[in-house]
C-alpha cells in the first residue's frame, strides 16, 4: 500500500473519530456554580480545621467564614441556559473536509522542503539504482533543479555510467555554475576520465570553486590533493594548512586533514635526499687537535668543478660521529641531482676553503649516489 493510501486512511480515521463524538458527545459533568458551592463548603470545613490546629484565632473565625460566604455569593451566577443543538451531519462533513483539505495542503506545502523527498519513496536501504530512478522521476517534473542533476551525476558515476554522469554534471553546471559541491564533484568525475589527471577542465572547475569561496575547506582540501599529485607539495601543504586553520577546533574533518598533512610530512621526510657520513676520528687524532678546530665534510664531483657540491662545516666539539649532507647544504648543483661523488673529510684549524699545511684530509672511494647514500670513514 503506497503512503498516499495510508494518508487517506489516517484522514478517514481522524474524521470518523471526530464525527463519532459529534453524534455521541461527552456528557457535561458539573456546572461552575456546583463546583464553587462545593469548594465553598470545603473551605469552611478547612477553616474549622484551621481553628482546631491553632492556625486561626476564634475571634477571627466568624470574619473569615463571612469572607468565604461573601466570595461564594460573588461567584455564583445564573448558569447559562440550555445548550443550543447542532446538526451533527453538517459539522461532521465540515470538520472532515477541513481535516482532509488542511492536512493535505499543509503537507504539500511542506513536502518541497524535504530536499527531494517528494519524489523518493524512501526505504531504509535504498539502492543506487533506486536512487537514480527516483532522481530521474524528480527531474522529469523539476528539470531546473541543479542540485538534483548534480546528485544524479554522482549516482551515475558511482554506477559506472561515466558518460551519463558527465551529461548530468554538464546540465548541473549550466544551472548552478557557482555551486561548490557540484564543481568539485564535476572536477573529480572529469579527472577520472583523464586517468586521475586534474589538468585542464578539472583544474578550471577547482579554480572556479576557489573564486566562489577562497575559504571553502572542501575546495582547499581537493586543491591540496591535486597539488600533491602534481608534486607541488608546497601548495598542497599550504592548502591543507589553511583548511585546518579555517576548521573549528572540534570539527571532525580536522582528523582527515591532519592525516593528509602527516602523510605529506612522512612523504617529504622519506624522499629527502640525504647522504650519511659515519665518521670515526681516532683518539690519537683528537688528542692532537683542538676542539675548536673545524671539521669540514663535503661531497665533490668526480670530474669537473673542484667546488664542493655540498658541504657542512662544524667545530670538533660539536661532532657526534655522524654528518648528514643534503640539498640544503648544496653550493652549486643539488646533491640529489649528482651521481658519482667523492666524500672528503678535512680537519682544519683555520676552516679555510683551501687546504692548509696542518690540515688532515681523507677522501672516500667513488660513491654512486644512485646505489648508496651511506659511507663509513675513518680518520687516523
Amino acid at each position, binding site marked *: 500500500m*503506497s*503512503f498516499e493510501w*495510508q*494518508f487517506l486512511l*489516517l*484522514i478517514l480515521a*481522524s474524521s470518523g*473519530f*471526530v464525527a*463519532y*463524538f459529534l453524534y455521541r*458527545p*461527552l456528557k*457535561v*459533568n*458539573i456546572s*461552575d456554580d*456546583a*463546583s*464553587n458551592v*462545593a*469548594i*465553598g463548603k*470545603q*473551605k469552611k470545613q478547612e477553616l474549622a480545621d484551621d481553628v*482546631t490546629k491553632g*492556625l*486561626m*484565632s476564634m475571634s477571627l473565625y466568624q*470574619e*473569615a467564614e463571612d*469572607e*468565604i460566604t461573601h*466570595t461564594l455569593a460573588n*461567584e455564583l*451566577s445564573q448558569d*447559562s441556559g440550555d*445548550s443550543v*443543538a447542532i446538526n451533527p451531519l453538517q459539522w461532521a462533513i465540515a*470538520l472532515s473536509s*477541513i*481535516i482532509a483539505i488542511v*492536512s493535505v495542503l*499543509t*503537507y504539500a506545502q*511542506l513536502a518541497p522542503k*524535504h*530536499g527531494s523527498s517528494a519524489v*523518493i*519513496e*524512501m526505504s*531504509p*536501504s*535504498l539502492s543506487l539504482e533506486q*536512487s537514480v530512478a527516483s*532522481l530521474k522521476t524528480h527531474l522529469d517534473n523539476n528539470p531546473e533543479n541543479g542540485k538534483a542533476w548534480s*546528485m544524479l551525476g554522482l549516482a551515475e558515476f558511482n554506477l559506472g555510467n561515466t558518460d551519463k554522469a558527465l551529461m548530468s554534471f554538464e546540465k548541473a553546471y549550466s544551472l548552478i555554475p557557482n555551486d561548490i559541491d557540484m564543481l568539485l564533484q564535476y572536477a573529480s568525475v572529469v579527472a577520472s576520465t583523464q586517468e586521475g589527471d586534474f589538468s585542464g577542465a578539472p583544474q578550471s572547475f577547482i579554480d572556479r570553486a576557489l573564486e566562489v569561496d577562497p575559504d571553502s575547506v572542501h575546495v582547499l582540501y581537493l586543491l591540496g590533493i591535486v597539488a600533491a599529485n602534481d608534486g607541488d607539495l608546497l601548495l598542497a601543504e599550504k592548502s591543507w594548512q589553511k583548511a585546518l586553520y579555517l576548521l573549528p577546533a*572540534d570539527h*571532525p574533518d*580536522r582528523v582527515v586533514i591532519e592525516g593528509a598533512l602527516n602523510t605529506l610530512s612522512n612523504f617529504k621526510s622519506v624522499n629527502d635526499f640525504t647522504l650519511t657520513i659515519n665518521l670515526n676520528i681516532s683518539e690519537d687524532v683528537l688528542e692532537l687537535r683542538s676542539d675548536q678546530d673545524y671539521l669540514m665534510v663535503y661531497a665533490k664531483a668526480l670530474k669537473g668543478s673542484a667546488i664542493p657540491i655540498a658541504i657542512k662545516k662544524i667545530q670538533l666539539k660539536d661532532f657526534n660521529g655522524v654528518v648528514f649532507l643534503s640539498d640544503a647544504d648544496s653550493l652549486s648543483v643539488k646533491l640529489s641531482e649528482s651521481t658519482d661523488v667523492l666524500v672528503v673529510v678535512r680537519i682544519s684549524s683555520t676552516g679555510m676553503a683551501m687546504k692548509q699545511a696542518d690540515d688532515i684530509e681523507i677522501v672516500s672511494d667513488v660513491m654512486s649516489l644512485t646505489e648508496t647514500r651511506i659511507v663509513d670513514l675513518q680518520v687516523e
Partner: protein
Amino acid sequence: MLIEIGHFALVLSLVFAILLVVVPSIGIHQNKAVLAQLAKPLIWGQFFLVLISFAVLMNAFLTDDFSVKYVAENSNTQLPTLFKFSAVWGAHEGSLLLWMLILSIWSVAVSIFSKRVPSEVVNQILVVLGFVSVGFLLFLLFTSNPFELLTITPTEGRELNPLLQDVGLAIHPPMLYMGYVGLAVPFAFVLSALIRGRLDSTWLRWTRPWALIAWAFLTVGITLGSWWAYYELGWGGWWFWDPVENASFMPWLVATALIHSLSVSEKRGAFRQWTVLLAIGGFSLSLLGTFLVRSGVLTSVHAFATDPTRGLFILIFLIVVIGGSLALYSWRSTLIQKSNKFSLVSRETGLLVNNIVLVSAMFCVLLGTLYPLILDALNLGKISVGAPYFDAVFVPIMIPGIIAMAIVPFLRWKKDTFSRLWSMLRLEWLCIALVVVLSPFFITDNIFVLIAFYLFAWVTIHSLFLLTQRLRSKAQVTFAFLGMIVAHLGIGVFILGATVTTQMGVERDLKMTIGEPQNIAGYAFTLNGVEQFNAQNYQGFKGSVSVIDGEDTIELSPEKRLYQTGMPMTEAAIDPSLARDLYVALGESLGNGNWSMRIYYKPMVRWIWLGGIMIALGALLAAFDRRYRLKVKS
C-alpha cells in the same frame, strides 16, 4: 514509507490543534455543548497523532534509517540501543517533538483527571493548551522538521554527541520538559479563567495540584541535570550558573512562588491578581528558556542573526503569549475579587515575603543571564557573568526567605502576634541559640559552613517541631502538610550539602605515577595502571585506582573515552556515600607511566540531590492531598 506517515501524522496533529482552538471556542461562545465537548476528543486525537510521529522517529533511530537527515546526523549503527532511544531527543528537532509529545500528555492528563472541574472550564483550558500546541507544531513543522529526508541515503550516520551518551542525559530532558511544559497547565487554567471572566474559587483550587506536579517534575529535571553534570563533565561541579541551567531555574523560582501564592489565594482569597501574574510569568519564563536555548543567542547574539528563522519564530510566539496574556489580564483584572484583609503579622504576610524573595531572586538570575547577551547585542563586548555574581547576589536574597520559610507555617491566618510566636517557639529558639554558640567549637570555624548549618538547624528544628505539634494535636495530618514538611526539610538538606561540599571539598589536579600513593583528605590514592580498551562505539583508557579508607580498600576505574568524532570524554569513577564522595577523573598520559588525574573529595555532595528529591517528593505528596478529591454533585 513510515517516515511519510510520521510526518503526515504530525501535520494532522496540527490540524487537530487548530480545530481544538476553533471548534470548542465556537461551542463555548454560542452555548453549543456538543461542539464545546469536542475539546477532549480533539486533544486525545492530537495526542495519538503526535505519539505516532514520535514512534515513527524512534523506529527510524532503532532501524538505522539514515534516509532521515535527523537520524543520519545523530546516530550510527554502532550506537548502543539505549542511546538510540535517547538520541531521538538528542538534538533540536527531536527534542522539540518530545516537547510536543509531553505537552500532549499533559493536555490529555488534564482532560482525564479533571472530573471534578466543570466541563466548561476544562474545555476552555484545553482550548488554551491547543493554542500553545498550534504554536509549537507550526515551529516544529516549518522550522525544525525531524522527518526531513536525504536524497541519497548514506551508509552510515554521524555520532550522537558523546556527552549525551549517558543514562543521566537519557532521562534528564524528558523530566525537565515535563516540568517546563507542565507550567503550561497552570497558565492555561489562569488564561481560561481570564477568557471566561470567572476568576473564581474553582480555578484557584484546581490549579494548585497541577502546579505542584509540574513543579515536582521541574525539580527532578534540574536535580538530574545537576547530578549528570557532576559525574559526566569530569569537573566535579554540580551547578555552574550556566545560562542553560538558569533558563530552567528561573521558571522553578517563579513556580515556587506560584504554589505558595496559590495556597493563600485558594484558602484565604488573597493575592489573586498576583497569582494570575505568577502563572503567566512561570510559563513565559519557560518559553524564554526555550528561546534562549533554541535560538542560538547563547552562543552569540549574532548567531541568532545568521539563522534567524527559529529564533524569530520563538520570539514572536513569546511576544504573542506574554503580550496576549498580559493584555487579557489588564482587560479582565477588574473582575478579580479584591484581596481579603490581613494584618502585618500573619501567615499571608509571611507568604508574601516568600513571594517577594523568590521573585527578586528570579530577577537577579534573569539579569545575570541576559546582561551579557544585551552587551553582545549592542556590540559593547563579550562578558561572562558567572558564579561570583550569582553567589554575591542570589545567596543574600535567599537567606531571609529561608528564615521566613521555617517560621511562616507557625503563623496564623489573617492575624497573629509575635508574643504568641515567642511563647510557642522560645524553647526551639533557645536550642538553636545553643547550637549557634557551640557549633564553632565542635563543627568547624568556616563561617559559610556555619551559616549553612544554622540554616539547616533552623529549618529542621522548626519543621520537626511543627510535625510533632501536629501529631500531638487531634487534627488530621494531611498529605499537603506532610508534603510541606518534607519539601522544607529538603531545602535544609540541600543548603547544608551545597555549602559543605563547596566550602570543605578538596580538589587536586595531580601527576600520578603508577604505584606511588597520594594522600588527599586522609585517603591514600594509588594508580595501579592504565589499560587501553575498545567498546562498541568508542575506544578508551581505563585506569585502576586503589583508595585506602582506613582498613578498607576501594577500587575505582576512571575512564578516558575517545569517540568516533574524536571528542574525548571523561568518565569519572566515584565512590559515593551520604557522608562523602571520592571522585577520580583520568586525564592525559604524561609518559613514563605518569598520568594527570583529578581527585576530589566531596563531603556531603549527595545531600544536594537528596534535598532535590525531597522537595519533589513533598510537592507530589501535596498534589495528592485529600482536599483535591473533593466530590461535587452534578
